[in-house]
């Protein structure tokens, strides 16, 4: 169940302007503009204007509270770690899926996509069921001093779970279109497996890996469902989205909007950047 959502940028080639423009077409245009404008742009404008509502000063003071600083810092660190781990293992998974033939490969491929299908809250529940203080594995790990649930490690595992397919599904199509003859040429010139991977395969995959890692980072920044359970709402393990939720439930909307504006600006620029990367790669290919 590979989703197109990750595989390619929204395909907008040269639309033909061939058909005569009738009144029906204006209706469709207006419908689209109202739907996307009203449903997406308007709310975004609302939150940004609320974030800046009482001026830059208010935004700054909202962001300089110790809680906000800690939450944003924890989010950035765990999301960055997730992106790095994902880049490595995602590339590995894509390589294994494309280049190796082994029994159960199709099943394996389907399993990699599971995080698309499993509700994120359920992911969190699963992790607590496994690593929670009352669960066997959680107890065993706790015995040797490793705390997963209700700790930053649990947040990292939750982020890794929900973003697992991202790098795999951006790298996989590029890898399968990569001409195997290039690798064979490298072998025939005397290069070993590792040298060939590092000097021939990896450079070709770099844009896709970067795009996948950026998407991972953006998605991990905003993740809420899996983390709200795993982090257990304890100060020190609050990511920015969970922090925003807490502020909201205390009706501190200005501060919530301020943190949201920061988070939203980061993840939006990342997604737009990724889109450009993918588009350029598609045009080159």
């Amino acid at each position: 169940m590979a989703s197109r959502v990750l595989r390619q940028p929204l395909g907008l080639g040269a639309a033909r302007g061939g058909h005569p423009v009738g009144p029906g077409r204006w209706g469709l245009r207006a419908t689209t503009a109202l739907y996307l404008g009203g449903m997406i742009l308007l709310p975004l404008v609302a939150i940004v204007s609320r974030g800046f509502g009482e001026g830059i000063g208010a935004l700054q003071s909202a962001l300089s509270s110790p809680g906000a600083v800690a939450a944003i810092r924890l989010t950035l660190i765990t999301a960055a770690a997730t992106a790095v781990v994902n880049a490595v293992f995602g590339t590995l998974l894509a390589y294994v899926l494309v280049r190796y033939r082994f029994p159960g490969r199709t099943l394996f491929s389907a399993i990699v996509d599971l995080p698309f299908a499993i509700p994120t809250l359920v992911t969190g529940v699963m992790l607590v069921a496994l690593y929670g203080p009352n669960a066997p594995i959680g107890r065993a790990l706790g015995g040797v001093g490793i705390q997963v649930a209700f700790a930053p490690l649990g947040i990292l595992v939750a982020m890794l779970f929900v973003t697992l397919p991202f790098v795999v599904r951006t790298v996989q199509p590029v890898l399968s279109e990569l001409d195997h003859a290039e690798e064979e040429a490298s072998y025939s010139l005397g290069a070993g497996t590792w040298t060939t991977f590092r000097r021939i395969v990896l450079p070709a995959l770099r844009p896709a890996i970067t795009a996948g890692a950026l998407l991972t980072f953006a998605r991990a920044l905003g993740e809420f469902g899996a983390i709200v359970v795993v982090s257990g709402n304890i100060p020190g393990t609050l990511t920015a989205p969970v922090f925003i939720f807490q502020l909201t439930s205390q009706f501190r909307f200005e501060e919530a909007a301020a943190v949201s504006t920061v988070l939203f600006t980061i993840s939006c620029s990342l997604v737009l950047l990724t889109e450009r990367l993918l588009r350029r790669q598609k045009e080159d290919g």
Partner: protein
Amino acid sequence: MSVGTAPLARGGSRTRLVRSALLALALGYVAFLLLLPIAGIVWGVVRGGASEVASTFSDPAVRHAFWLTGVITAITVVVAGFFGLVAAWVFTRDRFPGRQALSAVVDLPLAVSPVIVGLMAVILFGRGGWFEPFFAARGIQVIFALPSMVLVTIFICIPFVIREVAPVLEEIGTAEEEAAHTLGASSLQSFFRVTLPSIRWALLYGIALTTARALGEIGAVLIVSGALRGLTETATLYILLALEERQEASAYVVALTLAAVSVTLLLTIEFIKRKHEKERAR
């Protein structure tokens, strides 16, 4: 490594060793990260036993939660499906100034944390919000009620149908539609008889993704619903509240049910699609 003796791709025992090691690492990572937690929750449900499952499903609160989730999902699928189809068509078959900018907007919901989506709804419709006076004057409750829960779910699900359908529309091109027109088909006839059958799998897949996402939505719904027991409590909110009240067993049952429904849905669509493609190519 000595240059002359480097093994070719599928050659020596050393290469095979590397291969096995990479394969083991890949399988091990996925097993540890994905399968172990899934096994954990399945075990949690099994340990609770059939009686726990039965009592969970006979609980009126659980039934109401599933019903509410179903209603929100159904409305979301209809709205996001219909408008998504229109938007995908406009993006690929029409050309007007601002088309590229408008298409970039489609990706924004993927970048916004669901919590922020919830907060946006509160800012627009909550006390002191831009639209609050309008709805309050007409006695329509938006926040802490179904309308806002549906709105935020639609917001989050907007990209799926558009992003599944638009590339396929682009790929199939306009020649078949033009052929239908020269044969006398009206725009609607051409859409329903020529275009729609070509994009139906993409559309179904987009709808399946929408459904899966709507079923599992928590962050935005949590904020706008107020999680009022028995009133605005969806299946995911039920899980969250049950965990807080230390009713883990029934939380696990509901969680596993939700996951099973989404996974089955997506797998089924994928399966039917493959079978269909195979039949046609035979």
